[in-house]
């Protein structure tokens, strides 16, 4: 059974740190070690930046929604925007020699590196959803996190 924490925010870069801190804190509460919690937070951070910049095109009147879920031994984060959608399938490999000097284009690369699964879904007329998943290890500590999330939810 899933337990959710949901944030709904205006599309402002100033809120990226807030989401990062929440992702890192929840990951720690679920039992992830500090370096891994930072990795997860960095992946979430990049998903939120993408949603604000490329999804909602920096339009502060459009919202982003971030759902944090602990479910079936997974920490799942869903980031939704309200934009026209962006093409995530043709991103250049930032490790290719011709791209190494590019000053952008590493966000999705970081997401893919720092969590176990990244999935993009275009929602007809409703923007894009990015799903990030990281398996919770060790399983023995996951229960503590569940309690924390339940408490936060009130």
């Amino acid at each position, binding site marked *: 059974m899933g337990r959710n924490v949901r944030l709904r925010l205006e599309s402002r870069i100033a809120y990226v740190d807030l989401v990062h801190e929440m992702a890192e804190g929840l990951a720690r509460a679920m039992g992830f070690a500090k370096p891994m919690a930072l990795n997860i937070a960095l992946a979430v951070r990049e998903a939120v930046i993408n949603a604000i910049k490329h999804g909602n095109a920096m339009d502060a009147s459009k919202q982003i929604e971030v759902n944090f879920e602990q479910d079936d031994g997974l920490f799942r984060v869903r980031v939704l925007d309200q934009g026209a959608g962006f093409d995530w399938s043709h991103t250049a490999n930032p490790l290719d020699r011709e791209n190494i000097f590019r*000053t952008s284009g590493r966000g999705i690369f970081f997401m893919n590196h720092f969590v176990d699964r990244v999935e993009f879904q275009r929602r007809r007329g409703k923007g894009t959803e990015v799903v990030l998943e990281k398996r919770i290890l060790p399983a023995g500590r996951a229960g503590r996190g569940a309690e924390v999330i339940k408490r936060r939810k009130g």
Partner: protein
Amino acid sequence: MKANARHHGKVTVVDLSGKITIGEGDIKLRQAVNSLLDEGRKNIVLNLGGVSYMDSAGIGELVACYKRAREKGASLRLLNPNGKVQDLLILTKLQEIFDIYRDEREALASF
């Protein structure tokens, strides 16, 4: 993010601390390096020892600084990337591009 420049003869060391991320740290890094390049400084060392982490925008700005320095005939080198910052430089293969030093004296002597 904080940036504090120290001059050692012809070399400037910029001590960076905090995080280099979108919207603040990346802008401060850009301003710090642009300011030195505008002053005509040709030898710049970015001391990353106090930087806890960067995101894609911070990494992108680091690359942008490197390119701007080269365009202006200057040289930009890195000192002491630690922990997550070092991980990101390795992950992005940028450690193959940047000249990276562990010891400030070596960095100063490298120009």
